[in-house]
C-alpha cells in the first residue's frame, strides 16, 4: 500500500488526453496508450503533483461516498501499476 504522505505525480512526457474519436480518456506515454476507465480517470484527475496519496483517497471517498479502505486499496493498486510502467512518479 502506498503511504499516505507520498505524492503521486504524472511525469513530463505522459499526458491524460480526451480521445474524442473513441469517446474515452487515455493516458498517453512513450509508445503506450493506456485507456482509462471511470475509476482510473477519477483517480488521475486528482493527481496534481501536490496532493498526497492520503488527500487523494479522502477526496475520492467523499466524492463517491465509498469506504475509505476500499478506495485506498484500489487507488494504491492502480497507481503502483502505473509506477511500475514508469508513467507515474511516487515522491516520498
Amino acid at each position, binding site marked *: 500500500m502506498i503511504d499516505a504522505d507520498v505524492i503521486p505525480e504524472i*511525469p*513530463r*512526457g*505522459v*499526458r491524460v*488526453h480526451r*480521445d474524442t*474519436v*473513441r469517446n474515452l480518456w*487515455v493516458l*498517453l506515454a*512513450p*509508445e503506450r*496508450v493506456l485507456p482509462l476507465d471511470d475509476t482510473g480517470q477519477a483517480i488521475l484527475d486528482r493527481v496534481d503533483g501536490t496532493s498526497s496519496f492520503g488527500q487523494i483517497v479522502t477526496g475520492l471517498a467523499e466524492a463517491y461516498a465509498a469506504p475509505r479502505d476500499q478506495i485506498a486499496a484500489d487507488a494504491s493498486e492502480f497507481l503502483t501499476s502505473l*509506477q*511500475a*510502467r*514508469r508513467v507515474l512518479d511516487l515522491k516520498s
Partner: protein
Amino acid sequence: MTVRVAPPIAMLAELTHRCPLSCPYCSNPVELSARDAELTTAEWTDVFTQAAALGVLQLHLSGGEPVARRDIVELVTAARQAGLYTNLITSGIGLSKRRLDELEAAGLDHIQLSLQGTDAAMADEIGGYKGGYNRKMQVADWIKELGFPLTLNFVMHRRNQHQLPRALEMAEEMGARRIEVATVQFHGWALKNTAALIPTREQAMEANQMVADARKRLSGRLVIDYVPADYHSEFPKRCMGGWGSSGLNVTPEGLVLPCHAAQTIPHLDFASVRETPLTEIWYESGAFNAYRGTDWLPEPCQSCERKTIDFGGCRCQAMALAGDPGVTDPVCTRSPHHAALTEMTAAMNADSDQPLVYRSAPPVHADKDVQDA
C-alpha cells in the same frame, strides 16, 4: 469482411529519407525519395490534422533523420496543435542546443535517441559517420539538462550485442525511463547485410537471458521493450497489432503504407495523401485491406490457435524469405518454409565475417543542412 475496422492509434511520419548516417541495417527502401519530392510543411500539417480526426493518438516523426528537415520545429508545432502525442525518432546528429530549446517550446513530448554502439569505435563504424558518437553524447547531455522525456533505442546485432549491458547503464545515466533493445530486422537495405549482422542462435539465447535478468533488476526504474532475433524464435513476431489494425506509415513523398516495409510487396498499390483523404485510404484502400483480420490467412495459420496473436507473422518477411507475401511467416516453426530458413541462417552464422555494405548517399546529401540545423 464482417469485422468492423477500428481506427488507427499510431502514425509514423517519415519526414525525409535524408540522413547523415549510413547504417548497414537501415530499413528504408533501397530506392530513396529525393528531397524535392518530399511533402511540404503545409502538406504534412494537413496530414497531421487528418490523422488526429481519424483517431491517431501518437505520432512518430522519423526518417531518415527528421531533424534534417529545416521546418522540423514548425512540424512539431503543427502536430501538437492537431492534438497528437509527438515523438521524435532521431540519431541526434544535427540537433543543436538551440534547436532542442525550440522543439521544447513547440511542445515536443518525447525523444527517442538511437544508439549504434556504446563507444565511438563501434558506433561510428556501424553508423559510417566519424565523430557521430561524440556529437550524440553531447546531444544526450542537453536532453538530460532540459529534462526531456527520453527513450534510448539500441539496435542490436551480432557485432554489438556484447555491449548490451553498457547500453542499459547508459540509458539510466542519461535519465531515460525506457530503452528499446531491438534486434536488427531485415527489411529494405538491411537485407544486403543479413549474413554480417544476424546473431547466432547462442547469441539470441544469451540476449533473451540478459534482457530477462535486466527486467527483474531494473523493474520500476527502466522499462525495457525488447525485439528478439526472430529468425531464432519459435513463433514469428506479431505484425504490429495486425496489418491495417493499429498503425500507418506515411513516406516522405506522401504514400500511405500499412507498414514501413510494405513497398517490398510488389502487388500492392499505395495511395498518396496528395490525392486521397487519409480516412478513405485507411478504411477502403486495397493495400490496407489486403491482409486485414484473419480471413485471408493460409494454412497452417488458419487452423492455428495463435492466429489472433501473431496474425501469421510478418507479410514483408514472408515476401523476402519465401517470395510470397500471402504465406505463413517462414520464421514460424510450423511454416513449410521454416526448414529452408534454418538452413540459410546456419550457413550465414558459419560464415559471418562478411564486410558491411553501407547505405549509399541519399539523392541530396544531408550533411550541409544537418550541420547548420
